[in-house]
C-alpha cells in the first residue's frame, strides 16, 4: 500500500520491475526520490507501476485472503486512476444494479511483515496499527514474519491479532527489525533517519555510496545497523 524507505532502497538498487501501491512518499518528510527517479527518468531502470487508492488495495488483499477472484468497493467513479489502471473495472450489482468497482485479488508469492512477539511454536502476536498485514499474510502463497522477541507465552487476550504458526512459512527473531520505522511497545520511529534519507536518496551518487557501504557491504541486518551507527552522519 505505502512503499516506504526500504522500497526506495530496492528501487534505487535496481531490484524492482513493478510496483503495486496506493501512496508512495517519505511520510512526514516528502518524496521517495529513488521512486521518483525511476518513474520520472527510468533510473536505474524503468519501473512499471500499478496504482490504486487505499480502499482498493485493502479490498484486493481481503479478496486474496478470502480466495475470491476480485475485491469490490464503492468509489473510483469519475477519477483518473480508472483511465490509467486497467485493473480497476466496474460491475453492476446483480441485486440493486448499483455500479461497483472491482479490483483483482492480490495474491503475493511472498509476504514479509514485522510483528512484536512470537511464541516458541511460531504463533505471532501483533498489536497497534495492524494495517493490512493479516490480509497480506493470508493472501500470500508464503509468509515470513520477523518479530522483536520470541517468548514462552504470548499472553494474548481473546480477539488479539494472532497469526497461527500453521499459516506462516518462517518466523525470525530480528530485534529492531522495523527500522527505520517503529515497533509499538518497543521503540519509536527513527525520525532522524527518515530526514537523512531525503538527502541520501535525492542524489544518485550519494545513494549509490550509501547502499554500497551499508547494505551491499554488510552481511546481515545486525551488521547493517552497526554500520549505520558507525557512520558520522547517516550518509
Amino acid at each position: 500500500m505505502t512503499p516506504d524507505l526500504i522500497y526506495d532502497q530496492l528501487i534505487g538498487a535496481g531490484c524492482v520491475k513493478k510496483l503495486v501501491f496506493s501512496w508512495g512518499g517519505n511520510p512526514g518528510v516528502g518524496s521517495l526520490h529513488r521512486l521518483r527517479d525511476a518513474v520520472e527518468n527510468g533510473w536505474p531502470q524503468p519501473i512499471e507501476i500499478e496504482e490504486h487508492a487505499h480502499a482498493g488495495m485493502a479490498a484486493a488483499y481481503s479478496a486474496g485472503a478470502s480466495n475470491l477472484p476480485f475485491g469490490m468497493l464503492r468509489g473510483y467513479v469519475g477519477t483518473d486512476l480508472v483511465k490509467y489502471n486497467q485493473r480497476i473495472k466496474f460491475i453492476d450489482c446483480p441485486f440493486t444494479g448499483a455500479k461497483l468497482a472491482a479490483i483483482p485479488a492480490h495474491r503475493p508469492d511472498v509476504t514479509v511483515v514485522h510483528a512484536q512477539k512470537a511464541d516458541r511454536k511460531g504463533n505471532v502476536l501483533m498489536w497497534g496499527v495492524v494495517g493490512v498485514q493479516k490480509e497480506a499474510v493470508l493472501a500470500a502463497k508464503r509468509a515470513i514474519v520477523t518479530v522483536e522477541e520470541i517468548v514462552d507465552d504470548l499472553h494474548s487476550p481473546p480477539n488479539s491479532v494472532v497469526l497461527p504458526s500453521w499459516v506462516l512459512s518462517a518466523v525470525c527473531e530480528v530485534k529492531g527489525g522495523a527500522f527505520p520505522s517503529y515497533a509499538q511497545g518497543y521503540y519509536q520511529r527513527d525520525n532522524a533517519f527518515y530526514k537523512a534519507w531525503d538527502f541520501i536518496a535525492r542524489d544518485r551518487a550519494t545513494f549509490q555510496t550509501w547502499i554500497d557501504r551499508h547494505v551491499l557491504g554488510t552481511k546481515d541486518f545486525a551488521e547493517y545497523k552497526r554500520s549505520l551507527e558507525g557512520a558520522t552522519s547517516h550518509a
Partner: protein
Amino acid sequence: MPEGAYTSDEMMTVAAARMIRNGVTLFVGIGLPSAAANLARLTHAPDTVLIYESGTIGAKPTVLPLSIGDGELSETADAVVSIPEIFSYWLQGGRIGLGFLGAAQIDKYANINSTVIGDYNKPKVRLPGSGGAQEIAGFCGEVLITLRQNNRAFVKKLDFLTSGGYFEGGDSREKLGLPGKGPTNVITDLGILTPDPETKELTLTSLHPGITVEQVVAATGWPLKVAPKLDVTAAPTAAELSVLRDLNERTARAHAGQA
C-alpha cells in the same frame, strides 16, 4: 514577530480549524489538515472524533503525528481497527461526517490532484498519490480542503483528477452516485472559497485580513468568481495562536527527540 502578528500559514490553519464543529467525526489527512484538526480539538471542539486512515478511531495525539500510522495515534485512540475495516465499515459505511484533505492542485469545481504534475506516463513530478484521499472525498458527509493559494496550485485544468469534488459542476457529482455532499469549503492562506449552490463553481466568499481581491484573483489560474458581499475572516485570537504555537513547538521537540 510583534505581538498579535501571525503568519499566513497560521491564519490558514486557524480558519480551517474554526470550520470543525464540536463532536463531528472527522477523517483527517496528514499535514495541514492534521494541524487544523488538532487545533480544533484543543480549542473549541474537544469532542471531535479524529480518525486517521491507518485505522485509529478517536485519536487524541499530544503532538502532531509524522505519518498516519504513528504509534502516538493508536496509543491515544478509542479503538484501532484494520485498514480493510476502516475503509469498508467506517468510511464506505457512511459513519464519517467530515473529511479533511490537502492537495497539490485544485480546479474550479474543487476536484483535486495529489498524483502527478505533468503527464501520468512521463511525469515532471511524481507525487505520492491518492492514499485514502479518493475515498475520503467520495464518502465523508462533507469535505474541507486546505492548501496554499497560487496559480501553480489553483489551475484551470488538473494534470490528474485524484479525488472528486464536483467533477464537471452542477449535479455531476450526484449523477455519479457519490453519497457525500462534497467539498463545502476550501481554506487557503489568502481566504475562503465555497461552491456556488447551483453551478458548484468555487467562489471567493471571505478574505483573510489584509488580503485584497486582486491578490486572490492573481493567485488563481481561472477567472475566479467573487461573492458580491465578501466577508473578512476574523484574525487569529491570542488564544488560538498560543495553542497552535504550543502544539507546533511540542511537535518539533518530540520529533527532534526521536533521533
